[in-house]
């Protein structure tokens, strides 16, 4: 019933305050998500709901959650299919020669 983000009061260790360089895919993920909001494709609240619904929420990094949630919302809304997303990802992976 409770969602994985609702952590307040749970036992926890120290906060990891290490900084890291923002990677290109993270910038892209941020840009795409905000652009979809601005175009009225989805709302911040849908984005949050989709993030909280990720079964592997605790294993994912911040922008991995964003990317997974955006993918799920686009599929949910019928704008893209999993097959289209996977095919495009495979194409980019070949073109960029990594991942």
């Amino acid at each position, binding site marked *: 019933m409770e969602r994985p983000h609702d952590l307040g*009061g749970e036992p926890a260790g120290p906060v990891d305050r290490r900084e890291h360089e923002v990677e290109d895919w993270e910038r892209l993920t941020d840009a795409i998500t905000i652009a979809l909001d601005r175009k009225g494709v989805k709302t911040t*609240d849908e984005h949050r*709901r989709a993030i909280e619904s990720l079964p592997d929420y605790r294993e994912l990094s911040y922008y991995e959650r964003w990317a997974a949630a955006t993918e799920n919302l686009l599929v949910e809304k019928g704008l893209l299919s999993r097959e289209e997303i996977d095919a495009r990802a495979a194409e980019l992976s070949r073109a960029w020669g990594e991942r």
Partner: protein
Amino acid sequence: MSPFEPGDRVRVLDLGKPGHVRTPRYVRGKTGRVERALGEFRNPEDLAYGGDGLPRRGLYRVAFDQRELWEGYEGPAGDSLYVDVYEHWLEGA
């Protein structure tokens, strides 16, 4: 029209509502004091599922005594924690 005024004592309801809600579980059932009314906003619990979020709901900044929230709280007496809570999660206390 606002059902609550600054200074009012309020209790947070435990609505048991599934899905996306913005009332953290550690304040549910707890009593606090309305700090101020923040205005009316489209309901995020409805917006989260593609709805229009209407009618707009009043949002209140509620101050809780930390000792009320956490058993064995060791910080100074008078420490407060502020949470923004929508009116349908509140009742007068």
